[in-house]
């Protein structure tokens, strides 16, 4: 299948996974990501894989843990409250160095909140759980990327034997957009599971997968080893979008995910303002140095989010000059419109 087609964000995630060779999916219903388990319940068996409806998010993440132990490319998806329930499991996966793709289609919080789009799980994604672990966190901005990033997430997860998160929101999950599926594309599978997965100790020494390290110094050393890997990821996998041609700007807008696309509209519309967009694509690793460089030329750095200010902390860490940074955000499912952001910009610029 190729050529332009209209696809829902949630479905694009499911398709990206299947095309990347995901053969184990476990999920529990929660709005606004229900299309994924629903679609997977049909598609996964067709693709020769395993679909399991977990009875809770705890079971979801631990099923994914198990499937990964067995060497299958595996995925789970949920939304904010469900993601909180997965924190322990994710930490275990990182501790055990197990690959796996975790999708968070964020909604309004705290607590039960509502089902409107939100970006208020940024912290939970990039500064997660207990223990000093990290996950590559990809933030798609359109439906093409919902597909592409999910596809690539599996390779990244395998390459680093680490969970990878797709951090998106109900807007991108529920909207449809024209995309091009590149069905010909093959996953790279950079570090095959056969090297480390538990498949029975036939013709080799028994393997163990674990995160408990009780011998004095062993866990400390394990952390250093993990961080060596994380440093490697920082070097190799950092992604951001920043139009090099847009050299001439006073205002730098920093936004991710669905807010980034709105911000592009702001820039296109607000011709009276010399603005450029810096869009972190990997939220972890975060492009600190690159953003810092880009911010130097700006008089003001604007951060737009659908929360009370989370990524803005990383922006401030990059910019190191709070007087330059202006934040505008809306929590609890409030969707900043293009008009609203532009008028904020105009007010602050003049």
């Amino acid at each position, binding site marked *: 299948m190729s050529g*332009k087609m*209209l696809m829902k964000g949630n479905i694009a995630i499911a398709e990206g996974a299947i095309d990347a060779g995901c053969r184990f999916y476990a999920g529990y219903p929660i709005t606004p990501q229900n299309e994924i388990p629903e679609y997977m319940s049909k598609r996964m068996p067709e693709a020769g894989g395993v679909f399991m409806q977990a009875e809770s998010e705890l079971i979801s993440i631990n099923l994914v843990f198990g499937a990964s132990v067995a060497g299958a490319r595996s995925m789970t998806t949920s939304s904010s409250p469900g993601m909180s329930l997965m924190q322990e499991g994710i930490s275990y996966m990182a501790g055990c160095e197990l690959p796996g793709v975790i999708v968070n289609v964020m909604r309004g919080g705290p607590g039960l909140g509502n089902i409107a789009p939100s970006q208020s799980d940024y912290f939970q994604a990039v500064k997660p759980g207990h223990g000093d672990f990290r996950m590559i966190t990809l933030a798609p901005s359109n439906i093409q990327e919902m597909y592409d990033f999910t596809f690539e997430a599996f390779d990244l997860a395998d390459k680093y034997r680490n969970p990878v998160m797709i951090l998106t929101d109900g807007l991108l999950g*529920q*909207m*449809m*957009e024209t995309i091009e599926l590149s069905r010909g594309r093959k996953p790279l599978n950079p570090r095959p599971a056969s090297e480390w997965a538990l498949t029975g100790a036939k013709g080799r020494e028994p393997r163990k997968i674990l995160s408990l390290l009780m011998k004095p110094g062993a866990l400390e050393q394990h952390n250093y080893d993990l961080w060596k890997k994380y440093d490697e990821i920082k070097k190799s996998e950092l992604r951001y979008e920043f139009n090099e041609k847009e050299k001439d700007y006073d205002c730098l807008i920093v936004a991710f995910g669905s807010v980034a696309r709105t911000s592009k509209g702001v820039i296109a519309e607000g011709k009276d303002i010399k603005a450029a967009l810096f869009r972190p694509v990997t939220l972890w690793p975060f492009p600190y140095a690159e953003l810092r460089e880009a911010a130097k030329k700006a008089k003001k750095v604007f951060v737009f989010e659908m929360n009370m200010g989370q990524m803005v902390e990383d922006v401030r860490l990059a910019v190191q000059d709070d007087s330059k940074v202006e934040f505008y955000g809306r929590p609890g499912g409030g969707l900043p419109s293009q*008009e609203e952001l532009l008028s904020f910009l105009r007010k602050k610029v003049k």
Partner: protein
Amino acid sequence: MTEKIMIAGSGGQGVLMLGLFLARVAAMEKKNATWLPAYGAEKRGGFSHCSVIISDEEIFSPMVENPDTLIVFDQRAYDSYKSRVKENTLVIQNSTLVKDDEALPGKKVKLPALEMANRLDLAKVMNVIMAGAYVAAKKVINAENAVEELKSSLGRKESGVIKKNIDAFKAGMEYAGKK
């Protein structure tokens, strides 16, 4: 070219399907398109609207705030959105259920879609009639492609149903074309 369409009505009127239909035709024409639904908090009888954007360029926010075209199915929808109508907004209104506010600017297509649908003996085609009117009134997507999409989307339905839908579409086109 960028066309921003807002479609509004109540659950059960086919509001979301209409949006989807327009976006699909655009995709068929290798244009970029987005479709963004919004439901009321309640499941049924609630408010229903969607945003559709069709463009040759990259589409930014999929939310339509200032529509180029507003398609409204009933009075409540009309009242909720009429403040967004500008000088050059095209308004396609289901005149069976919408009382026109003459003070409003913009180009108007008032078609009695519900009446027409009842006449076609298939209330469910009201949204197809509105689609026809849209295609005729604003030449963003091609009528033939639209009919193609209509057929393929009804693929497995019996031929009588397909015919009625095409008739409905054409009736809508015709009505709007006349104006």
